[in-house]
């Protein structure tokens, strides 16, 4: 078994041609996943990638592990069944913003509340890629797409707020272009026991190019994005000159000229109330200061996993009743003989 645990990124490649558009953000994600997984020392045969349908959902075909490219939106339900049946497997779910938040929305929220130990990689490109460019539930309001030639009128989901509302135990955000951070977040997802919901901003250069540019462009990224770390104060700005402070329950942007780092909001991954505020940095609601988009692990909580509880209940019942005997079951309590 040992040898199946020492493999390289290369060993995780399959013989299938990768069929994404040249320069698609999906390539970068695939690469980082293949790079970081060997470090976990999971026997390769114990790894399973489950996906739905979408460009992103082609992912399993490119991973030389077990995998299933299933149907649109249902990856979460399939992965849950698999994980409950085989708790020892390392189960990964790859999905898109349409796959998980549109058609798969119900399974998605139920996955999060149940909390099986599944690592969700949600490729959010804010568009339907595979069906050639309709708006998705994360597309911004007024977006002009094939199905909304006059602009969409649908208020978009805030995926991490939705996840938190569904009592997720782990929510994090990263970006295709941030190789290192992406690796770290994949690792954190793996380490977290319970459903890890990792939102990955992914550029669809064909139908929604540059959607996240200001979050990655050199001249804006440090002002528009903030990378949080547990125990560290919230600092950002092109020159690291800004910080975020909590005024009661209200976040405010302060200049580090005026405010000492000691008075800044210190990130606490385990604080649900703070996480609920952090996820809303997204919204730029009227009346809220303009806040940077948050990257990193926004929230993490220990909660027993679904498959643990299922397994434990089985063990308890067997402990109490003994292992079932088929003949007893067939016979039942009231039988007679002719």
């Amino acid at each position, binding site marked *: *078994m040992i040898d*199946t645990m020492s493999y390289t990124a290369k060993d995780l490649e*399959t013989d*299938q041609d990768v069929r994404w558009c040249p320069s698609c953000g999906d390539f970068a994600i695939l690469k980082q996943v293949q790079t970081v997984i060997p470090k976990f020392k999971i*026997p*390769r*045969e*114990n*790894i*399973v990638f*489950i996906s739905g*349908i979408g460009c992103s959902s082609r992912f*399993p*075909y490119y*991973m*030389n*592990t*077990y*995998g*299933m*490219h*299933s*149907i649109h939106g*249902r990856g979460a*339900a*399939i*992965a*849950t*069944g*698999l*994980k*409950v*049946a*085989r708790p*020892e*497997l390392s189960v990964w779910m790859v999905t898109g913003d349409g796959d998980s938040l549109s058609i798969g929305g*119900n*399974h998605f929220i*139920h996955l999060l509340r149940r909390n099986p130990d599944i690592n969700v990689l949600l490729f959010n490109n804010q568009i339907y890629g595979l069906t050639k460019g309709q708006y998705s539930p994360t597309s911004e309001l007024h977006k002009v797409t094939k199905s909304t030639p006059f602009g969409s009128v649908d208020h978009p989901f805030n995926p991490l707020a939705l996840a938190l509302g569904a009592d997720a135990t782990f929510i994090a955000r990263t970006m295709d272009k941030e190789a290192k951070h992406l690796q770290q977040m994949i690792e954190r997802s793996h380490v977290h026991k319970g459903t890890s919901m990792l939102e990955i901003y992914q550029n669809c250069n064909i139908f929604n190019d540059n959607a996240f540019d200001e979050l990655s462009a050199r001249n804006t990224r440090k002002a528009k994005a903030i990378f949080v770390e547990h125990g560290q104060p919230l600092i950002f700005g092109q020159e690291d000159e800004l910080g975020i402070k909590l005024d009661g329950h209200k976040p405010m942007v302060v200049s580090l000229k005026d405010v000492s780092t000691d008075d800044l909001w210190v990130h606490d991954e385990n604080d649900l109330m703070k996480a609920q505020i952090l996820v809303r940095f997204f919204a730029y609601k009227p009346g809220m200061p303009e806040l940077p988009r948050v990257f990193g692990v926004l929230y993490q909580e220990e909660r027993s996993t679904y498959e643990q509880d*299922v397994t434990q*209940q*089985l063990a308890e*019942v*067997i402990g109490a*009743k*003994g*292992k*079932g*005997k*088929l*003949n007893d*079951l*067939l*016979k*039942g309590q*009231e*039988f*007679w*003989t*002719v």
Partner: protein
Amino acid sequence: MKTEIKDHVVIKFAGDSGDGMQLTGNQFTNNSALFGNDIATFPDFPAEIRAPAGTLAGVSGFQLHFGSTEIDTPGDFCDVLVAMNVAALKLNSRYLKPNGLIIVDVSGFDSKNMKLAKVAAEQNPLTDGSLSNYSLKIFDFSKLTHECLKESGLTGKSIDRSKNMFVLGFVYWLYHRDLTSTISYITERFAKDELLLNANIATLKAGYAFGETTESMTERYEVAPAKLAQGQYRNMMGNQATALGLVAASVKSGLSLFYGSYPITPASDILHDLSKQKHFGVKTFQAEDEIAAVCSAIGASFGGALGVTGTSGPGLALKSEAISLAVSLELPLVVIDVQRAGPSTGMPTKTEQSDLLIAMYGRHGEAPLPVLAAKSPSDCFDTVFEACRIALQHMTPVIFLSDGYIANGSEPWQFPSEENLPTINVKFAEKKETPFYPYQRDENLVRNWAIPGTAGLEHRIGGIEKEDLTGNISYDPANHEKMVKIRAAKVKKIEEDIPEIALEFGDENDDILLLGWGSSYGAIRSAVKQLRADGFKVAQAHLRYINPMPKNTEQLLRKFKKVIVPEKNNGQLVKLIREQFLIDAISYTKVQGLPFTQYDIVQQVKNLH
């Protein structure tokens, strides 16, 4: 007092939902079964959880047919009707045999009950002479129970709830029955409440004693044990048998059972029953909806478990897309459909056989799969076991059809022992020197099943058309045609692995064949018996395997001048027969949410002549 010996008796307990008639019926059923009668039951309860007391909508009934002879159906008409209120009598008197016995509880006939049942005061059936063709026995069971329990320390309401035990005791007396089985039941049920325990036993005994002393009764009856084959028996309901069959298939295949389901009438009890079997390693998953239910089972199956999902019509419709995925993946999966009256929500508590065509064809694209149907409550065990076997050994989703009638009905079941059940051989693929192909097939066109955790067999499968052998995505036109044909041929080949169809009754010289499927078995069987006794040359055959049909089906059908297909739908199997064999089969249907009666079918055949 005179005791008359009867071959078989149909008794119906009917009352308000609150009167405990299901319990009463079940107790009498168990008692008869333990006594050795052959039996068939038909519980019939209102759609509402608690319909307004006293109303017609609130009537709950339990019909039992028990006998010393072979019993095929719960009976068309009743010998005895126990009616706890006027609504129950009003709804059920039409199903009574001429001169039948009616036992009523007069406390359910007061003006309030009359109003609730929408019966005008001057039309009180107890007094208006309308029941003069029956033997009408009127008691005040309510008063009698109160008298019996006046010192019990129970509240009036609790005492009312014991009334059914009084009635049961009385009926036990009427049929010379032993009280032991019910006393043990009460003892277990009320183990934690001595007051109720004692009260119920006292009432039961009081009912029996009342029989001994009352002067209104002039006759008692006896129904001898039936001449069943030697062996051990228990009383079995369809859903219960289905759950047992699944556990048995899990044990005999050595795979753990995963049951993903979303509650729905009348399938929920399978989920309930299985959720009690955790000591068999059974994992039940109450999913957020039917789509998640079937998908979770597919996931479990991919992981090497026996993945099963169960539902009723609306749920089957929702599962269509995912079942099509399972067809494409070629993974084992058992889909249980306990049919109910449709379309749409239909009549959830009523039975029907109208999901056959959706089972056959309700998937987009060419997505054939085996379809099996159970013919009786206990046959659910064998048929679902067989469905599991086929799914596992042929790597295919299988649809197993049951329906509300057999799901809740019961009959004596000569249960097998673990040792007598066939082993279901399942072999997962193992690492070999040769390259591994997930879609490599054996002589039955069955592909390799390699499960995660097996080093060296890592592979990917999916719902896009796949290349033969490798399973890689392929858009090649010839490959697609090949795969479509292979998937069809694989299902067709199952006919080599199932028994031929044989006549249940009659022989090939008869004129007419009654060809049935599913739960109409018993009614057809009893009708054929009667028709043959009446001199008609009628035979019976029954299909458990609907897709593929047994190899000799056409050959058998062609032996007869006429083939009649009775179905509780608007004509579905008949379409398959006509299409496949170009035989001008005649459809005989009943779409009332009710099972066929023997009379229904007998009349139909006689009308043909």
